[in-house]
Structure formats: structure tokens, C-alpha cells
């Protein structure tokens, strides 16, 4: 009889305790869930946005990016990030990214897809022709070796090594209109 009575109570669910405290369930044990970045490779990088220099870890599985998060080992941001730093994942995982060289012909209303080889050759031709057509060797008897017909803007977003090569290339070409974000 005992068993059926408890069975009965269980079936009806109206245990006296249940009514009084209303808390039917006691807390459930905690089990470690699988981390979605388990086994991902972590590559340190520095945030591309402001001048803070905060450390970020990029998690990748094979070639695919899965997650980015603050680098806890980095002394400047101690693993923390701001609004933009938190979002660097979407710079790569983004269907708006340019994936092809694009060319716009004079007067055209559309972009045309081109390949790198063609583009770099055409750009080189234009640089040479514009430089040579507007090159000034001397001014008031002084050697100046410059062209004022080509300007180069950028890049506070480039790496140091890129800035160095750009500085070197521009000066070798005789460019004086050399400016970038530090000026505005």
C-alpha cells in the first residue's frame, strides 16, 4: 500500500512540500559544455583600429577563422577590448570584402573585374608616363629631381614595413606630394 500511495502522490504531483515552497526542482549539477573554440589555433595580433595597441587572439581551425577575443597575456589591454576591437572577427567573415581587382574605365558607370598582373602593369605604365611627362630636374639652377603630378596618400593603417617601402618607393619616384592621416 505504501508504494501505491507514494506512486499516487508522485502521479498527482501535489506533494505537500511542492505546494508550500513552490520550488519543484532542486538545482541541477553543472557539466562542462564543449567550448566552440576547442582545439582552435590562437594567433596573436594587434587591433587595427585606434592607437591603443591592444592585443587580440585570432582563433582559427585550419584556414577558417572561428573567433577573436582579447589577448589576456597582453599588458596594455589585459585581455579586454573595446567595441571595435571586439568586432575584428567581422573584418574577415564579411561578404562586403573586396575579393577581386576592380577597374573603372573613364566615364564608365560600372566596375570591371581584372587580374593582378594586368592591373599592376597598367598602374606602373601610368606612373612612369605621368612622372616622365611632368618631371622637373632643376629649378632656379638647383637640382630638384621631382614630379608634382603624382600624389600618394596613406597609410596610418599600413604596417611599418609597408610604410617604409612606400616612403622609399615614393621618394625614389621623385614624389613630393606625399601625405597621410597624420596630416588631417
Amino acid at each position: 500500500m505504501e508504494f501505491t500511495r507514494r506512486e499516487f502522490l508522485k502521479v498527482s504531483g501535489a506533494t505537500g512540500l511542492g505546494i508550500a515552497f513552490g520550488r519543484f526542482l532542486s538545482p541541477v549539477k553543472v557539466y562542462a559544455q564543449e567550448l566552440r573554440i576547442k582545439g582552435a589555433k590562437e594567433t596573436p595580433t594587434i587591433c587595427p583600429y585606434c592607437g591603443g595597441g591592444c592585443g587580440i587572439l585570432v582563433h582559427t581551425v585550419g584556414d577558417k577563422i572561428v573567433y577573436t577575443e582579447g589577448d589576456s597575456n597582453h599588458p596594455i589591454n589585459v585581455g579586454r577590448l573595446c567595441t571595435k576591437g571586439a568586432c575584428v572577427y567581422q573584418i574577415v567573415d564579411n561578404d562586403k570584402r573586396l575579393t577581386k581587382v576592380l577597374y573603372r574605365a573613364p566615364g564608365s558607370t560600372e566596375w570591371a573585374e581584372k587580374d593582378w598582373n594586368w592591373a599592376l602593369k597598367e598602374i606602373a605604365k601610368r606612373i612612369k608616363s605621368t612622372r616622365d611627362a611632368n618631371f622637373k630636374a632643376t629649378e632656379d639652377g638647383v637640382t630638384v629631381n621631382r614630379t608634382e603630378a603624382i600624389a600618394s596618400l596613406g597609410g596610418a593603417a599600413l604596417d611599418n614595413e609597408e610604410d617604409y617601402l612606400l616612403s622609399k618607393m615614393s621618394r625614389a619616384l621623385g614624389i613630393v606630394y606625399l601625405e597621410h592621416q597624420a596630416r588631417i
Partner: protein
Amino acid sequence: MAEKACLVDVTKCIACRGCQIACKSWNQLPAEKTTFDGTYENPPDLSASTVTKIKFREVAEGGKVKWLFRKVQCFHCTDAGCVKACPVPGALTKLEDGTVYLDQNKCTGCKYCIMNCPFEIPRWDATKGKAFKCNFCYDRTSNGLPPACQKICVGGAIQYGDRDTLIAYAKTRPGFLYGEKELGGLHWMYLLPVDDPELYFLPKEPKLPKSLIVWKDILKPIGLILGGGSILAWLGYHFLLMPQKEKLTKEAEKHS
């Protein structure tokens, strides 16, 4: 195991909303289409894809201006309205570390939790046909990592750790602790500079809806008793009372 919690010092929050993005980034939640309608605050409300956000309030008094920010997400209450309301075993559970975990695999989309949370936190995910809310980054915390929003907070406004330690720490700080007692104790607590929770969009004495208690703790048990009882009653009637009823009515017929 010791209960975990987060303590938010609202005076340190700069509303940069790194937490909103860290949450979406870790939990892979989509962005919403929003427009700027006169306030920095966006998106305007929680949703199934925005399970944490910062609420803004500009206060101008006596020539001085204050700009108040308060992070909202599931409070992971001890007496959780959603856990009590949820009819599906295991869909909304109170875990030992204090997390109130909504398991979307089990959720059937009845919306009871949405209707019964005193803080109006769980929201409807129309695409999945299920409810969703902040799960305290349970996959992270169960592996010893802090929640994504806590880790990223650049102002140091959010601390994560043992609930008791955080309460003891909060008591040493200026300001008022919100969440120690409310609803049996919240696992997201707030250090407010003034004893005015409403100023920070926090209900003064949050309570579970009376209807929920009536519904779940009074009506349903009674229902079960009546339901179960009436089956047994009629079985008992059949053997004990039906013969007498037949005897009584048959006699009456003979006389008439």
C-alpha cells in the same frame, strides 16, 4: 559547488558596448537592423539576438548633467520566474553555479517564460520558434572561463567570481548593492551610486507575478488532486455507492 555571479559597478561603465558585441561574437548572434532615433542607445530593446545591452539615461538637474548607463541581461535569479513558468522539464533549469540555463533544444516555444519574468528578459526567436536569453556563457563558465561580456569590459565595470566574495567586496565599496536579496538573490548584481534602482531601470522590489504563484503553486496542485481524485472517486463510487443508488431508485420505481 560555490555559486558564481557578476557584479556590475555602473559608475565604471562607459557604455562603449563592447559587451554587446562580445556577447554576439561568442554566441554567434546576428545583428539587427536599427536606426538612430535620437539616442546613442541601440538596439532599442533586448531581443533573441540581443541578449545583453546597455540602457542609457541622461539626467539634467541643477545645471549639472549626468549620463547614466546600466547593463541589462538575464539576472539569473535564485527564484527564477522563467524556471517556475517553464512547463518542459530540463528546458529552463537552475544550475548549481547559479546559472539559469535555457536549453533551446528542449524549449518548445510556449512563451511562458517570456510572460512571467519580472525583468522581462527572455525574448522570442521567431526564426527558431523558441525563446532565448543570456545563458551566462555557460559553455565558457563551465570550462572555467569568464563570460564573454565580463572579460571584454574595458572599464573594469564587471567582475566575475564567487557570489559571496563579490557580495563581501561590494559591501566595502561606496554605493548600494542591488541583487543580494531580490528574488532569493540575483547572480547579476549591481553597485549603484544612489539608492534609487528605478533611476537605473531596475524595479525597486522585483517580485514574481502573483498570477504565476497562484497558477503554479496553488491552481496546478489543486488541479492534479481534483483530477486524480475524481478518477478514484468514480472508481470508488462504482463499487461502494452505485449498488445503493440502484437499490434506492429501483424501490422508488416499484412504489410509483
